[in-house]
């Protein structure tokens, strides 16, 4: 296939994925698999599993990460750029239009009532997403202790209106993970070959 045509297909495929997946994240992974592994056959199944691992463990939205990764495999930096642009453009256009009218829309009395109901729902959706992730989390002592500690720290600081940066907590989590690994390594609990 001619290179520019391949880039165009890449752009259009991700544009479609960006336009038709609601809720983002994992919903997009299924679509990406259908498009690039089954239909276009640009990505091997094994490489697709690598892609999921990379997209989940690097920062940023999963759909965007996947687009960047597949784009790079297909057309290097330019491909990565084109795929990212494709997956983001539908969001940008739709949300930009929404943003122009949103305040006026929410100001209607009955829309405001609807949103009061929706706020309850958003709280519910976030808590249940959190509990689903908690269920899937490996129940090691480290994870349990850290989870309880984080929940306690945040609830207490929130209630006493004291701010604690969540980015600092994320960095502290990463550092603790590494320190624990080093301690295990140095005390010989993990053999050097691993």
């Amino acid at each position, binding site marked *: 296939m001619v290179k520019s045509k391949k880039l165009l297909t890449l752009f259009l495929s991700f544009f479609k994925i960006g*336009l038709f997946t609601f809720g983002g994240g994992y919903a997009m992974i299924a679509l990406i698999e259908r498009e690039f592994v089954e239909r276009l056959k640009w990505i091997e199944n094994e490489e697709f599993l690598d892609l999921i691992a990379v997209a989940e463990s690097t920062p940023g*939205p999963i759909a965007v990460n996947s687009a960047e*990764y597949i784009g790079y495999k297909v057309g290097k930096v330019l491909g990565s750029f084109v795929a990212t642009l494709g997956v983001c453009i539908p969001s940008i256009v739709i949300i930009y239009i929404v943003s122009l009218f949103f305040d006026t829309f929410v100001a209607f009395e*009955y829309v405001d009532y609807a949103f009061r109901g929706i706020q309850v729902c958003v709280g519910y959706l976030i808590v*249940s997403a959190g509990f689903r992730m908690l269920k899937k989390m490996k129940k090691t002592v480290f994870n349990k202790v850290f989870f309880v500690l984080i929940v306690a720290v945040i609830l207490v600081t929130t209630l*006493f209106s004291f701010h604690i940066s969540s980015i600092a907590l994320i960095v502290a989590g990463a550092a603790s*993970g590494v320190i624990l690994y080093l301690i295990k390594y140095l005390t010989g609990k993990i053999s050097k070959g691993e």
Partner: protein
Amino acid sequence: MNIYLKLFLTFFEIGAFSFGGGYAMIPVIREKCILNGWLTEEGIMNFIAVAESTPGPIAVNMATFVGSSQGGLAGSLLATLGVVLPSFLIIVLIASVMNNLIRYEGVKAALGGVQPVIVGLIVTTGTTMLLSVLFGIENVKSTFSIDYKSVIIFAVIAAAGMVYKKIRKKTISSIFMIILSAVMGIIMFGML
């Protein structure tokens, strides 16, 4: 600081430090938007519902929305560029030279340490939102006042979620839940 620069830098930071995608990115975005006075707690919850009901990744939707409300079209483009750029740089690096980066034990250990923090952040973010909506509790000084109408809405959607899960063995669609709660909001607050 210039608002465009501020939008770009703030969303760059969000893009660089929020792991897990989707809901996992909400705690960091919420914190940054509230600290900068870009959105209120209510505004964030309203917009999460919009982001869920429109296509595309939540983080990109949030960046575009906040950017547009603070700095018009240019603001929305800069905020979106900011949220996407860190992962673009990291993924290109991984895909080109450090193919095995995430297989290194040290990197795995760091990511393993991040995981319980993310789960803790999401659970507490949702809990504080519910405490405020259902019981009016924002801090120790708030007076406890139950909003019965909201509690009823909560009970109905939680029951709907559980029944669906029991029967269909999968998680109910968020959009369905949002529509259900909107209808209930109109009935409970507007008609009763």
